[in-house]
């Protein structure tokens, strides 16, 4: 497909810790098309943040990523981002300019030592123009666009003079100042008040139309996914367990985990007496994973002798809907090699 901006193939991330090596991301595949918003959903610790940071190559030194991340870069052509030196010039020409990122907690995402203007302008100066006057104009322009009132005054203020919502706007401004092809939003509204959350989401949607970029939207909140995304990939324990267009996943969730997630969202109109559905048990530690499906222990549809022996891989069930579950797609035939042992 020509309009694919980024394609991730069999991404694995290993983390070295005292107790040994932990495989936090265990073979993730997805792609994002031009102008599309992909929601990556999962609970904390499932590897979604690691995956997004791996795209930019800004994970901790202890994390080692394998696989391929093919990005269609303006200056480099189609390039595997993982093959670039994470401290080198090439990847830096991608970061911030072609792929940029906004983070979960805007309060700590800025250095307290420099003015907001200085920090936004840094990206402009790095990627767009060396002319300081022009750069400042561009930065101010973007600040106005993201809805920071009185941008000239705010430009010279420090992060501690901003509210959380304003900081998130500033962070978005910083990410968008170079008009990137792909914006990675790592739980951008989690740390904000509900009313501000809605504003920021609205802003992001608007800006996406203006700038025509793609968004990788990472969240654990299915409510925001419904508002924002075209397609959704559900991650569990370092794997994508189900991916489908957003509407499809709400209407027709297949994987027991996805069903659990959707069942646990409170919907307006349900009776108070109805208890929210909750998934039993806890996520197993990724250090010593048992064989078979990672969700086995918590699954209510598990098939003994299959699910705890084979690990399911994503199977297309039509309509761009992919599921990794034996209970949904039928038992594996070991000879055919469906699924990993």
């Amino acid at each position, binding site marked *: 497909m020509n309009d694919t901006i980024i394609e991730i193939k069999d991404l694995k991330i290993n983390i070295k810790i005292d107790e040994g090596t932990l495989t936090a991301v265990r073979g993730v595949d997805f792609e994002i098309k031009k102008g599309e918003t992909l929601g990556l959903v999962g609970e904390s610790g499932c590897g979604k943040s690691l995956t997004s940071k791996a795209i930019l190559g*800004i994970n901790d030194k202890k994390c080692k990523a394998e696989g391929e991340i093919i990005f269609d870069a303006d200056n480099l052509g189609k390039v595997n981002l993982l093959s670039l030196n994470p401290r080198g010039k090439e990847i830096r020409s991608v970061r*911030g300019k072609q792929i940029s990122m906004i983070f979960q907690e805007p309060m700590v995402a800025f250095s307290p030592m420099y003015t907001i203007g200085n920090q936004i302008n840094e990206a402009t100066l790095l990627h767009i123009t060396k002319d300081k006057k022009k750069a400042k104009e561009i930065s101010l322009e973007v600040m106005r666009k993201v809805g920071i009132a009185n941008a000239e005054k705010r430009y010279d203020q420090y992060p501690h*003079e901003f509210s959380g919502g304003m900081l998130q706007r500033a962070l978005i401004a*910083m990410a968008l100042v170079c008009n990137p092809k792909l914006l990675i939003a790592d739980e951008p509204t989690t740390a904000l008040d509900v009313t501000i959350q809605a504003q920021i989401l609205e802003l992001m949607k608007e800006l996406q139309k203006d700038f025509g970029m793609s968004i990788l939207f990472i969240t654990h909140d299915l409510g925001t996914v419904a508002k924002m995304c075209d397609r959704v990939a559900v991650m569990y324990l370092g794997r994508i367990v189900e991916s489908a267009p957003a509407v499809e996943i709400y209407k027709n969730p297949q994987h027991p985990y996805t069903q659990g997630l959707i069942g646990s969202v409170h919907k307006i109109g349900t009776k108070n007496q109805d208890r929210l559905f909750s998934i039993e048990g806890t996520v197993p530690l990724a250090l010593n994973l048992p064989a078979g499906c990672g969700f086995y222990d918590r699954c209510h549809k598990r098939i003994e002798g299959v699910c705890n022996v084979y690990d399911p891989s994503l199977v297309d069930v039509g309509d761009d809907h992919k599921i990794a579950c034996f209970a949904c797609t039928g038992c594996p035939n070991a000879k055919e090699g469906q699924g990993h042992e």
Partner: protein
Amino acid sequence: MLKYIGKRLLLFIPTLIIISFVIFFIIQLPPGDYVTSYVAAMSAEGEVFTPEDIAYLREHFGLDDPWFVQYLNWIKGIVTEGDFGYSFEYGRSVWSVIMDRLYLTLAVSFIILLFQYGVSLPIGIYCANHQYSAGDYALSFIGFIGTATPNFLLAIIIMYYIYVTTGNVYLGLFSTEMLQNGMRWEYVPEFLGRCMIPLIVIGTSGTCGIIRTVRAQMLDEQARQYTLTARAKGCSEATITYKYCLRAALNPVVSGMAGSLRTIFSGSTVSAIVMNLAIQGPVLLTALKSQDMYLAGTIVLIQAVLVLLGTLLSDIALAWLDPRIRFSERG
């Protein structure tokens, strides 16, 4: 900012009064006074003193009064006439005794301070950027040894080493020829060589401390979210290290500056005695031993005032470095 400095300077006055009082109180604590130790010393050499002689000496030196009266007179002299009292031992005013060595003391302390920061900042940054590398381990190990060795003994070890390898004895900053012939260009290398020993000796313990602080702080800062933001923005590693991390990491280093000054004074006192440096340390020791109290009191007082000034300077530097502090002061 000016208002802040002014306010701090005003707060200086009560602190200074308490400091001078505490110092004077401690200095006069030893039983007896200068006359007692003077008489004891002279008697040992066979001089005979009648009680009248002793009483005359006491009256002459103004040691008859209760100690707080002596304190008030001392302070009155300092405030009204800039007179820090009379040194019994030297037989002249305390100020003139101190002036003999003040410039050299200040120069030595200042150079050591520069040396400490000049050496420890780059090393600290290197260690943080190469955490757990061989270089980091080696430098940290030397750092630990440096903090664990009393610096006056380090002086002896270094002098012993120089003696064994070159056969020269480097005592003091100036050789006898230098003192006899005055400074000449050909002495400069030797003079610099002689300066190195006190520099290393007095500077080491502080240097090692700063290295450890810088290293720990840099590692802390590197783990913060904003370095990730900067990296995601496309900043180079150098920008991240120097623009972002270093500036934040400097905070405790700068606020520790007054503390370094204090350790320098502390360290130089003993080391100067060992190395026979013409700075104030040895004078203080003899003054304390012979109960030459105005001299001893003034030396300690001057050091305390310098430390207080250092605190003020480091607070100002801190406000300049860190906007958060600047704003809380303004508000």
